[in-house]
């Protein structure tokens, strides 16, 4: 599947919801824990070698399941293969819970699950929304 890798790399440089150095272990059997700079940007989780500017990889977080594995560790797996887990080690339970909460909120799907368009409920008409696209950030 092709994807716009350069744009994804640029996204990894944007301000993060949450960023920290964590221990990370890939899903393959026998993989070891490595220190990674982990960065949550919109619905992507990027992970970097601690001294590098470009990410080693990215995880799209849609349809992910976040599970607490130990007091200070959690895992991310995906709906099509729930036993295939990416493990993360935090320095405290507090940090672990903080990350778990942030990851669960990071999905497009949250809006869809509540059935509410966050703009509709404020009475913002479709037309008005389109006008806003002319605003500069």
């Amino acid at each position, binding site marked *: *599947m*092709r*994807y*716009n*890798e*350069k*744009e*994804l*790399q*640029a*996204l990894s440089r*944007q301000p993060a919801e949450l960023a920290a150095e964590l221990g990370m272990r890939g899903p393959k059997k026998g993989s070891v824990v490595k220190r990674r700079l982990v960065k949550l940007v*919109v*619905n*992507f989780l990027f992970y970097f070698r601690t001294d590098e500017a*470009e*990410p*080693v*990889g*990215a*995880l*799209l977080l*849609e*349809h*992910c399941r976040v599970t607490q594995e130990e007091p200070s560790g959690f895992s991310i797996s*995906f*709906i*099509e*293969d729930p036993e295939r887990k990416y493990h993360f080690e935090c320095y405290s339970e507090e940090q672990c819970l903080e990350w778990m909460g942030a990851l669960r*909120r990071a999905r*497009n*799907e*949250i*809006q*869809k699950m*509540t059935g*509410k368009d*966050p*703009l509709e*409920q*404020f*009475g*913002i*008409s479709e*037309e*008005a*929304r*389109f*006008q*806003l*696209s002319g*605003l500069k*950030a």
Partner: protein
Amino acid sequence: MKLNERSVAHYALSNSPADHRGFLRTWGGPGTPPTPSGTGRRCWFVLKGNLLFSFESREARAPLGLVVLEGCTVELAEAPVPEEFAFTICFNAPGVRPYLLAADGPAAQEAWVKVLSRASFGYMRLVVRELENQLRDARQSLALHRHSSWKAGTSSCKTQPPDQLSRGLENGHTLSRDYSPMGLVEAGGSRPAGRNLAECELQGAASLLGRGQSPVSPETSCFSTLHDWYGQEILELRRGWRQRARGSQLKCEQQDKP
């Protein structure tokens, strides 16, 4: 750069709701298949949030490509592009070429441009900021009005509120509920990101006023009644503070235990 492609493809094919879908002609570019030049290649596109997937056909069992729609602008394509109903997706990122897509007709073109413009989280944050500004302005104007009507007495309360507040809200945004900005906050449901303290304060006041009371001062020039009415808000806040203080005290005690 690695990507969890299997999961991404699974998400693309899943029943999760799509924001838009349809056939578009594409001329290649990251995330879309290369084409023989000229006519472009007709693919089935599905937009889910900030993710634009392309497929060979509606029945395809794997996506051809993905375009992540953060940091992009979408524009109608201008001459010298000879294609009708064309538009471009442009990225700010260095070394990323904009790429060209074309719809089947003017309505489809307009629909795609609209929906793609709104597709990024960046856009949502912009809207949230705009909404927060409006809430702040409306709240200020409400506070001013409350203050002035309290001074003036009861007669002014009944006639003024709707106009004053709706004038305060610009850009053609209309409130589908009652004029009160408190009504906005009460709507509840999912909240956009970027919640801040002001919004939480507003919610506290709203929950009081939401109990069927007029957001404008109660009909009275009697000081003690007004005092009680404003006092309710203070009592609620105090209750909240005490609970939080108790909570953090408990936490400290627990930490002290062996």
